[in-house]
């Protein structure tokens, strides 16, 4: 790793300041709260939600979360009938600019393979039990297209501000392995 870094630095293929900035940016500046803001806005603004579902890439860019990894972002909406779950069976493609860096479990082989074969079991492992008549749709990310789940707005949040709503949106709820916090349960 150090050897590779030394070589790339010496040949000018990477730049030390840029490296530091990337590490710092993804560690502290870009995180799941960006995605949470997108979700919260979609909850309060029906027109934005429509744009988000029609063209996730542009709608997310409206909030200035542009990025090298979020270029082709498709937003899939949870409804009373359908729950969406995102996985990348090949490697671990993930919408960094909106969700930060992927959690370790997302990159693990058991999650990647089981999410497709047994999504209900995977959800149960995450403590999410869904009604048996609810359809679970699994979205397999690729290098070209990433998915973001638009969870359902929790009950009892009528009239809440976007910022307050965003607090309820967990990272896992945007991958589909969790649900937003219910009112009164969280912060």
């Amino acid at each position, binding site marked *: 790793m150090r*050897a590779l870094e030394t070589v790339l630095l010496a040949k000018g*293929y990477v730049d030390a300041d840029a490296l*530091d900035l990337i590490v710092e*940016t*993804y560690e502290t500046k870009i*995180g799941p*709260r960006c995605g949470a803001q997108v979700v919260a806005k979609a909850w309060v603004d029906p027109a934005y939600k429509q744009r988000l579902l029609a063209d996730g890439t542009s709608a997310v860019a409206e909030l200035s979360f542009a990025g090298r990894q979020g270029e082709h972002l498709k937003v899939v909406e949870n409804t009373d009938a359908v729950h969406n779950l995102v996985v990348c069976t090949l490697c671990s493609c993930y919408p960094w600019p909106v969700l*930060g860096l992927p959690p370790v479990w997302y990159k693990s082989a058991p999650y990647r393979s089981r999410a497709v074969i047994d999504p209900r079991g995977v959800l149960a492992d995450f403590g999410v039990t869904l009604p048996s008549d609810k359809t679970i749709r699994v979205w397999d990310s690729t290098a070209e297209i990433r998915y973001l789940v638009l969870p359902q707005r929790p009950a009892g949040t009528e009239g809440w501000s976007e910022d307050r709503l965003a607090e309820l949106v967990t990272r896992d709820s945007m991958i589909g392995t969790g649900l937003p916090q219910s009112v009164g349960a969280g912060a």
Partner: protein
Amino acid sequence: MSPSTDMLKLLPALPCDVEGPVFREPWEAQAFALAVDAHAKGLFTWSEWATALSAQIRAAQLAGDPDTGETYYQHWLATLEGLTISKGATSLADLKQVQSAWDRAARATPHGQPIVLENDPLAS
């Protein structure tokens, strides 16, 4: 224009916080940044990167890697090594030489002091 300003433009400072650790160890974040910056500087395209990483992980699985996430950045790094060589940015021999220099430097560095390449006793 300084590179950091350049990067800032690409990665706008966003009003966000972070939920939990996303790297297990600091070197993983560094490896991550190496690939992102090498891509940004045009060493390879992002789809070349994704293809190579997928192939690397598949090969590791076939070789018996349990692939539970812990080895992910080792695959990441191996992919970057491979691409760096196949793109002609370095040769395997050069890379090995620098690796040996780092190894010698690490052994020659007293405990508690930062390891720097200049500590390699063979460095001129």
